[in-house]
């Protein structure tokens, strides 16, 4: 048990990321208002992107842009992979962010349609109106 405490403290980032994901998941399930559910979805998405980007971090490494090299195919000195942050999670998460905002637009359009039809955005009132039909 005594050697568990240093590992718990060393990985504090992962616990906070998991907390963020669970806050977003709870908002999607338990909130009644549709816009709050959409906010929860967006929080969940950004928390997962945060988790993925944190996988690529290297200690003492710099950003993945080579400097001083002007192209034309010839590297003047050898490039060491340990000097640069891992670029592969960045690439995947760029796609994820932009797809996330497109999904947000569709979700908000659906919320506006629901409001035009039932004149409320609270889930329990909408379900009551549907059951009364």
């Amino acid at each position, binding site marked *: 048990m005594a050697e568990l405490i240093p590992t718990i403290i*060393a990985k504090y980032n992962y616990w906070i990321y998991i907390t963020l994901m669970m806050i977003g998941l709870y908002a999607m399930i338990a909130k009644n208002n549709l816009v709050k559910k959409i906010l929860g979805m967006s929080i969940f998405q950004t928390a997962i992107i945060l988790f993925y980007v944190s996988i690529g971090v290297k200690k003492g490494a710099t950003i993945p842009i080579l400097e001083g090299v002007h192209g034309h195919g010839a590297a003047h000195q050898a490039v060491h992979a340990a000097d640069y942050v891992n670029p592969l999670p960045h690439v995947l998460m760029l796609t994820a962010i932009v797809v996330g905002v497109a999904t947000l637009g569709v979700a908000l359009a659906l919320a506006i349609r629901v409001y035009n039809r039932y004149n409320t955005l609270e889930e329990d009132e909408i379900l009551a109106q549907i059951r009364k039909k």
Partner: protein
Amino acid sequence: MKIIGLIITIMTGGFLVYAAGDFPAWSDPSSPASTYLSPYYIEKAIEETSVPNIVTAVLADYRGFDTMFEATVIFSAGLVCFILLRIMGRKEPETRHYRHVLTGVTVTIKEGRKIPASEEFERIDDLWTPPELIIKTACRVLIPFLQLFGLYVIAHGHYSPGGGFQGGVILGASIILLAISHDLRTATERMREKVVAILCPVGVAIYAGTGALCLLLGANFLDYGALASVLHVDPITARSHGILMVEIGVGIAVMTTMIWIYNNISSAGKYNQGL
């Protein structure tokens, strides 16, 4: 529902915490994610593509197929917003409101008759607010510089953080700023709905067209080295130029999708008044 949500959340959180015990330590250079493929990308990107920004090189060249379908997804999201919300129809409203510019008196004309366009009367909407001179002038000065910066971000994506997505969003945000500071009618006159709706698939088509051009020239799909014969450069620089062409396509697609979604959401489909 709240108690079920709480139980589900705590159980999922418990599983994730238990699984996180096995993760490699944070910021470890020898973690499995950084071992197999990414050293190849870091070391060889400048030799094979002559692009110093490794993320742009991987995004548009090594993983170019993913980015093409991402542009397709963005276009289809804009299309879905349009289909859900847009109410077509040229039914002009029965009562129009006009405002006499010099005295500020509002005149309401009923039953479909209208005042012909003149200097003294301007057409206003139901939700009209008094004009804010400071905001209008400041935004009108700022918008050309925003667009210039957006074009710079797209073109300079090889050497600094940036690229097609970021530049496209900044360009779209400049038109959204015009719609917010003035009104939606001004922005729609500047960039009409048909132009926006047609430019969106044109952006995706530029991306796929570059890939098809490489196919026609004899190499694989999206293999930019084949463009060397068209552009009269060596294959490594041809890959750099191919990346620039697809970034322009992605930028156009993202810009028009942002404008399209904003127009549809803020006017709830009717396009007569906005935020």
